[in-house]
C-alpha cells in the first residue's frame, strides 16, 4: 500500500515531467537533424569540390566523436570562450548536429543510388540543377533513405537520455534522482526502460506505416 502511494505521489509525476522534457528534446532535434541531414547530404553529392570537402569533414567529425563528448563541448566547453548555453539548448544543439551528420550519410547513399538516367531526363527537359534536385531526385531519394533515417530517429530517442549527463533532467535524469532517494533502482529503472521501449516501439511502428504510405509500385528494388 505504501508502495502504491509512493508511486502515485512521487514516481508518477516525476516520470511524467521527465517524459515531457524528453519529448521536448527529441522532437525538435529529430526535425533539425533531418533538415541538416538533407542539406548536408545534397551538398556532399551535388556541391562543388570545396563545399563537398567541407561537408564531408563535418560529417567525419560529428560521426567520429562520441555524442557525450560533443554534448560536453557544447555545455561545459563553450563557456571557455564565453558562450553559455542552457543544458536544454546545448542538448538540442548537440543532438541536431550529431543526428544530422548520420542522416546525411543515408541521404547521400540514397541520392547516389538514383539512376543517372533520371538526371539526364530532367536535364533534357530543361530543368535547372536546383529544380532537378528538389523535384526529381530528392522525392525518390527520401523514400530510399527512409529506413536508415527512421533508424536514426530511434537512436535519437535512446540517446536523448544522455542529456542527463549535461544536467538536463529528462526521463532518465528524473529516474536517477528518484532512485538515489529511494534506493529502488531496479524497479524505477525497469519502469524507465519500459517507457523507452514504448517510445521506440511506437516510433518504429509509425515509421513502418510511413514507409508503407510512401511506397511506390516497383520502386523498392534498387536498380543500379
Amino acid at each position, binding site marked *: 500500500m505504501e508502495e502504491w502511494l509512493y508511486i502515485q505521489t512521487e514516481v508518477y509525476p516525476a516520470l511524467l515531467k521527465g517524459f515531457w522534457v524528453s519529448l521536448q528534446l527529441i522532437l525538435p532535434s529529430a526535425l533539425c537533424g533531418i533538415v541538416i541531414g538533407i542539406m548536408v547530404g545534397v551538398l556532399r553529392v551535388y556541391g562543388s569540390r570545396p563545399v563537398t570537402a567541407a561537408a564531408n569533414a563535418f560529417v567525419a567529425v560529428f560521426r567520429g566523436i562520441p555524442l557525450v563528448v560533443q554534448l560536453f563541448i557544447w555545455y561545459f566547453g563553450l563557456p571557455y570562450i564565453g558562450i553559455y548555453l542552457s543544458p536544454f539548448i546545448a542538448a538540442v544543439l548537440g543532438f541536431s548536429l550529431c543526428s544530422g551528420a548520420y542522416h546525411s550519410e543515408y541521404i547521400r547513399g540514397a541520392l547516389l543510388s538514383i*539512376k543517372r*538516367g*533520371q538526371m*539526364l*531526363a*530532367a*536535364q*533534357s*527537359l*530543361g*530543368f*535547372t540543377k536546383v*529544380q532537378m534536385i528538389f*523535384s*526529381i531526385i530528392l*522525392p*525518390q531519394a527520401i*523514400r530510399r533513405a527512409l529506413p536508415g533515417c527512421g533508424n536514426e530517429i530511434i537512436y535519437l530517442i535512446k540517446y536523448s537520455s544522455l542529456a542527463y549527463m549535461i544536467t538536463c533532467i529528462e526521463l532518465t535524469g528524473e529516474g536517477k534522482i528518484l532512485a538515489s532517494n529511494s534506493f529502488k533502482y531496479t524497479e524505477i529503472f525497469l519502469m524507465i526502460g519500459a517507457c523507452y521501449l514504448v517510445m521506440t516501439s511506437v516510433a518504429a511502428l509509425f515509421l513502418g506505416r510511413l514507409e508503407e504510405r510512401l511506397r*511506390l*509500385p*516497383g*520502386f523498392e528494388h534498387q536498380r543500379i
Partner: protein
Amino acid sequence: MAAPILRIENISKRYGKKDVLKGASLEVNKGDLKILIGPSGAGKSTLLQCINFLVKPDEGRVWLDEQEVHYAHKRDLYAYRQKVGMIFQDFNLFDHLNALENVRIGMVKVKGMAKAEANDRAVMELERVGLGDHMQKYPAQLSGGQKQRVSIARALAMDPKVMLLDEPTSALDPELIGEVHAVIRDLGNNGMTMIMATHQIGFASSLASEIVFMEDGRILERGTPDKIFNHAENTRTREFCSKITELYGER
C-alpha cells in the same frame, strides 16, 4: 531556301585518351528526319547528347534557329533544352511519378504552366500516343513500349522544335517495337524535325530524309536512303550496309 533549324559545327569530344567524336558537323532543316547509323562506339549517342549539351563537347558550336547556344549561359541553356526534346534508350521516366505526372512535370516546373492547364495538355499528349487508359500507372507497371511512348509524350508536351531520339527501340522486346515506331512515324508525318540514332534500318529507310553514316567518331557519308544503301561512295559505308542487310534481312 529557309535557314536550317539546327546547325552543329565541328563537335569533338574526348574521354581520357579516346577521341569519341572528331569534328562532326550537321545541318538540319525543318521537317527533316535524319537517321544516324553506324557500328557501336561510332559516337552516335555521344553526338546526340552533345547537341543538347547533356555531354559537354570539347569543341564545336551549336545554333538553333540561327541563335548560337552557349553552354556557359545557364539560363539560355535551360531554355534551349526545352526546345530540344530527347528520347533515351532507357526511357528514363521519373520513377516516383505516374505516367500523367511524368508528362506534366516538365510543363509545371520548367515552363511554369498552371497545373490544370498542364494537366489537360498532358492528357492530350498521352492520348495522342495511345496511352489514355494508362495515365495513373507508374513506370514499374508499364511495358517497355508503353514507357517509351510516355517518354515521347513527355518530350512532346514541351513543344520542342527538334526531337533527338537515341536508339529509342534498342531496349525493347521485338513485339513492342512496332507501337513505338508507329508513334515516331506519326510525328514525322506531322512535320516534326527529328534526329534519330537507330539500328532499325528498315524503319529508318522508309522514313528518313537523309541517312548519316558514322564510324569512329566521324561522319563518313551522308545521303538519301537510296544513295546510302544502293550507291554508297565510301567503302566502309558499303561494308556496314551489307552487313546490316544480312543481319536484319530487310531494307
